[in-house]
């Protein structure tokens, strides 16, 4: 896949140009460079090492070792021109050492040693200008993404494995992000890796006839990662930015590696447009601020601009999909100067399109909200009551909360207070419960 090697370096910032000859960098600065390299290069180093060794645990250990080595060496020798290539070589050499000491068969060792990645010398010496052609190590992150998101793995394992191997989060960090005990998360990762090995889940980008279906799986995992961080469901603190930021980072990598997939662009656009509102979504007390009450000057306009540009790019491919449509909805909000300026008929139309592409009761609920804004609360309430009768969202606080809002706008205060209480009992986060309690107080039903 030539497009991958061409885009391989596109997402990386120019490494700090410090060489031993130009004087040694300050230790603090090196630590920052290593940290940056960790975020940018971890996934690529692990992905390449898995391809070379076929051993996921060994790949992670050797990647870790390479970063530790960088912390020790770079202050002394200078930061290499291509930190990623240096790190991959260091990890590969470490893997060779480990395998030589083990009982690995000669054939695999020969293959690993023969990998064109530079001579077997210390990595710091290898990456001079004369080795520029060796920077074309293929980017293995795409195959790692597809393998982590294989449908034979449980969704929660797909998410955890993606965060561990591609984003480099520790087991403890992933456990904290998803609020499960660290031992549970460790076991989840062990089981997933064992299944990849035992069940023979291939380490590759799927062939053409599987690509569309499997790509949808990868996009879905990245979006779960994003929404988990974004809505922080179940958590006491309103938003933990880390998983959302990692999701955006990985979506950016995916869009770079699959430049012809409009849904990958659509997903990145959707994340950026939603994330642009992050600073405005909660007040100082950690309480939810609804979209209509948000201070729009606090929206991140760089993220909005990038999201809009990506969405435009995706839409010109004329292959619409659920993420592009959701990004288009987010774009309607992002471009409205104030709440009254929002193009609700357009949003209602987009949700109707989304309901055709990816039917779900949650989409219908969102459509009902948009219809209520476009055609009045009564039209929205009619759709909400149909959904309620269907029973698919029974027990979902957003159904009750939406119904309550519509009843309030219709002036049916007592009914609204009752529905708010229903929603309050079902709401999963403290911030949502406080919001609903405020509404109950406002409708005089406390």
């Amino acid at each position, binding site marked *: 896949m030539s497009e991958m090697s061409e885009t391989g370096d596109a997402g990386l910032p120019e490494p700090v140009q410090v060489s031993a000859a130009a004087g040694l960098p300050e230790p603090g600065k090196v630590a920052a460079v290593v940290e940056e390299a960790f975020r940018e290069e971890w996934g690529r180093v692990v992905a390449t090492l898995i391809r070379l060794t076929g051993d996921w645990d060994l790949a992670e250990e050797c990647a870790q070792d390479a970063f530790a080595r960088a912390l020790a060496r770079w202050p002394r020798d200078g930061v290499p021109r291509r930190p990623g290539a240096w790190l991959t070589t260091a990890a590969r050499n470490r893997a060779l050492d480990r395998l030589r000491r083990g009982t690995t068969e000669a054939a695999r060792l020969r293959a690993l040693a023969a990998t064109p990645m530079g001579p077997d010398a210390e990595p710091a010496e290898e990456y001079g200008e004369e080795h520029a052609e060796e920077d074309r190590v293929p980017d293995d992150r795409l195959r790692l993404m597809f393998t982590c998101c294989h449908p*034979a793995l449980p969704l929660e394992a797909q998410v955890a494995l993606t965060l561990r191997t591609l984003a480099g989060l520790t087991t403890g960090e992933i456990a904290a992000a998803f609020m499960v005990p660290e031992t549970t998360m460790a076991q989840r990762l062990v089981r997933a890796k064992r299944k990849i*090995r*035992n*069940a*023979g889940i*291939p380490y590759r980008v*799927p062939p053409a006839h*599987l690509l569309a279906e499997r790509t949808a799986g990868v996009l879905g995992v990245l979006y779960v990662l994003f929404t988990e961080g974004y809505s922080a469901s179940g958590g006491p603190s309103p938003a933990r930015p880390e998983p959302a930021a990692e999701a955006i980072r990985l979506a950016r990598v995916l869009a770079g590696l699959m430049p012809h997939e409009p849904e990958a662009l659509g997903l990145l656009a959707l994340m950026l447009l939603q994330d642009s509102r992050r600073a405005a979504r909660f007040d100082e007390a950690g309480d939810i601020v609804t979209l209509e009450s948000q201070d729009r000057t606090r929206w991140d306009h760089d993220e909005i601009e990038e999201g809009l540009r990506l969405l435009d790019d995706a839409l010109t491919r004329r292959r619409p999909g659920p993420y592009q449509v959701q990004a288009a909805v987010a774009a309607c909000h992002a471009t409205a100067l104030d709440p009254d300026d929002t193009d609700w008929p357009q949003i209602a139309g987009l949700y109707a399109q989304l309901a055709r592409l990816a039917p779900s009761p949650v989409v219908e609920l969102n459509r009902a909200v948009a219809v209520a804004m476009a055609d009045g609360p009564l039209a929205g309430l009619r759709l909400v009551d149909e959904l309620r009768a269907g029973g698919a969202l029974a027990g979902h606080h957003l159904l009750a909360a939406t119904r309550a809002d519509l009843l309030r706008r219709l002036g049916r205060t007592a009914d609204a207070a009752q529905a708010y209480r229903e929603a309050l009992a079902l709401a999963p986060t403290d911030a949502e419960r406080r919001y609903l309690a405020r509404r109950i107080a406002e409708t005089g039903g406390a």
Partner: protein
Amino acid sequence: MKYLLLICGDESMEISPEQSDPEPWVEEMERRGVRLQGHRLCPVGDATTVRAGLVTQGPFAETTEQIGGFDIIECADLDEAIEVASKHPMASYGAIEVRPFWPE
């Protein structure tokens, strides 16, 4: 890699013999060199279970879907095994569990 395909279905379900005939699948998979062996099984009413030394009549678990046959296949990886399983006629009417052999 070797996989066991457990061909499962509801025994009470009426499926015409033409719809469920596995012969074309068997022929194709043997021609490809994928299928090593396999067989259809008698209904669960004919099963006997030995558990903790006790002999009882019937299958080991009472479920709506029972194992009606098995195949042992040799594939490059799970994706190929999934492709082979999904071509089996019972994949449309019942369920096929794809189980890797314990690694040697």
